[in-house]
């Protein structure tokens, strides 16, 4: 069976560069203006991308580092004051107004990311195993599992806001009709983060499922046939063939899922906006909420730098895990 789905690794080992027609040595005989154009040509091609990446990624990242070292004085007309790492110290000082919120929000974000990964990865594998069969209505079932991944976060959150609603919400209506006590899903400080995480698991499981589907379809059928001849079946086949061969997919899904969890915050806008008392707030959402507070610009940037450093370290870890995974696979 031809694999229908495939996800190429982000960083592929490259074949050695071949000489192309454009670098042929006959350029020497051309007039200097043509030669200049020939030399400049590749740079002209990448210039638009490079300029855009500079304006919207490199410059703001560097500027965030600089701005995070300054504090805006009470009188906004005065120049910002250099405070060194003072803003960072405040962020990690639990007695400081921003530090108390920040440390809690980092905890929330880690809980959100880890719990999402712990639940959505096994679920997505389960869904992929189920949907990797020929069966009636397969398209419908696949749609049913995958569609949440296509919804805007704020749309998904609006639907769940109704399901979660305290009084007329669907979940509490069902609970009441079964004789249970209704639960304040978004109003209870101890529950709000769990509710937010629940929505994320529901939304992302279908997305990660497609990577497992792709991984499953890359496993050669002959392996299963050979194992069947050896008398393996069911769990034995799954644990000795499927799981080991999905190792790279699992690694990929784990890391991507984790990285995404740090950027997935828009749903909060319709799921209590981080309330009560920021118990449901996630890091990027805290940054978003603090932007309008001009005096806290230094904190906004310090938080941005921390978020970027976290994401960078995951991506670098991802890169090394993948390279190592590849070498294992090649050996």
């Amino acid at each position: 069976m031809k694999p229908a789905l495939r996800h190429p690794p982000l960083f592929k080992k490259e074949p050695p560069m071949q000489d192309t027609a454009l670098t042929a040595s006959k350029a020497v005989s051309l007039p200097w203006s043509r030669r200049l154009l020939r030399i400049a040509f590749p740079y002209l091609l990448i210039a638009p991308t490079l300029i855009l990446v500079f304006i919207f990624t490199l410059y703001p990242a560097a500027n965030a580092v600089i701005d995070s070292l300054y504090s805006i004085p009470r009188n906004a007309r005065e120049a910002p004051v250099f405070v060194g790492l003072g803003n960072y110290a405040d962020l990690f000082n639990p007695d400081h107004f921003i530090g108390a919120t920040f440390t809690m929000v980092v905890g929330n974000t880690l809980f959100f990311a880890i719990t999402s990964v712990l639940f959505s990865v096994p679920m997505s594998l389960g869904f992929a195993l189920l949907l990797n069969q020929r069966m009636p209505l397969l398209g419908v079932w696949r749609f049913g599992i995958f569609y949440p991944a296509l919804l805007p976060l704020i749309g998904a959150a609006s639907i769940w806001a109704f399901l979660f609603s305290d009084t007329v919400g669907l979940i509490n209506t069902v609970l009441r009709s079964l004789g249970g006590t209704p639960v304040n899903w978004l109003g209870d400080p101890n529950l709000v983060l769990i509710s937010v995480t629940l929505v994320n698991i529901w939304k992302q499981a279908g997305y990660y499922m497609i990577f497992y589907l792709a991984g499953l379809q890359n496993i050669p059928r002959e392996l299963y046939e050979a194992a069947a001849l050896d008398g393996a079946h069911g769990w034995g086949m799954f644990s000795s063939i499927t799981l080991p061969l999905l190792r790279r997919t699992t690694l990929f899904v784990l890391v991507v899922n984790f990285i995404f969890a740090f950027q997935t915050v828009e749903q909060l806008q319709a799921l209590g906006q981080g309330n009560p008392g920021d118990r449901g707030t996630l890091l990027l959402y805290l940054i978003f909420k603090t932007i309008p507070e001009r005096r806290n610009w230094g904190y906004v940037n310090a938080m941005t730098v921390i978020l970027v450093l976290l994401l960078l370290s995951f991506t670098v870890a991802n890169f090394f895990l993948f390279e190592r995974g590849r070498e294992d696979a090649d050996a």
Partner: protein
Amino acid sequence: MRNMSDTAGRGMWLLTGAAAIIWMLPLIFAVLVSFRPQAEPVSIGNIFFGSRITLDNYAAAWNIAPWGWHYVNSILFVVGVLTVQIVTVTMAGYAFARLRFAGRGLLLVLILLQLMIPTAALLAQNFATIRTLGLYDTRWALMMPYWGSAFGVLLMRQTFRGVPLEFEEAARIDGASWWQIMRSVYIPLAFPAYIAFALVSISSHWNEFLWPFIVTRTEEVRPLTVGLNKLYSTTELGALYGQLMAGTLMVIAPLVVLFMLFQRRFLESFASSGLK
């Protein structure tokens, strides 16, 4: 793939169906509530539609925000982003795939930094940049940060490398210019990659909320997701969930229909995307 002829197969089918239906419950109830009279909670009347089926919620939701503008803006946003992206990633993708030049590796790494530092994380600084450029509250502000795409460059580079070099050489011997070679060789052969890239780009920007919310103020330049946020904040206090669900469905319908039509293409594109 096994055939579903035995009882184990039937059990699998039931399990799959049950899981999919549970996953679909939020959507199903959103649809039901949107057609149910506003005053009737779920517990009253026919469990599915209450006492009657009505479009009142859609009418009420339609009147809360300038949805016509929101649709126009969302379409302009995704089309405006995609069009420029196609041009920039084609150019850079070709350069990195087929040309040799000093600093090639370093420049590629600089561009790839965009994958490692997602635009979303730089919300605050980019907001300041947009203000400095005098683009606050314009449609340009929505699109500009997404015009360059490291993911797209990587995808096109990989795709162009798969094109046999002989095709380009043959065209060159025939005297074709660079643009003619692109048009007759590379771009047609890379068509599936363009489709994949387009689907991922369109669906992620159609759903974008925080950035449009923060760089615009006037309703007439804001996209659907921001309109939905307004609908949420005006209906939530009154628990007017019928209206909220009607509005939510108006926003998500285009993508969901697109997905139903091209399910396979979508799944393949997303599987090859990994990172947006």
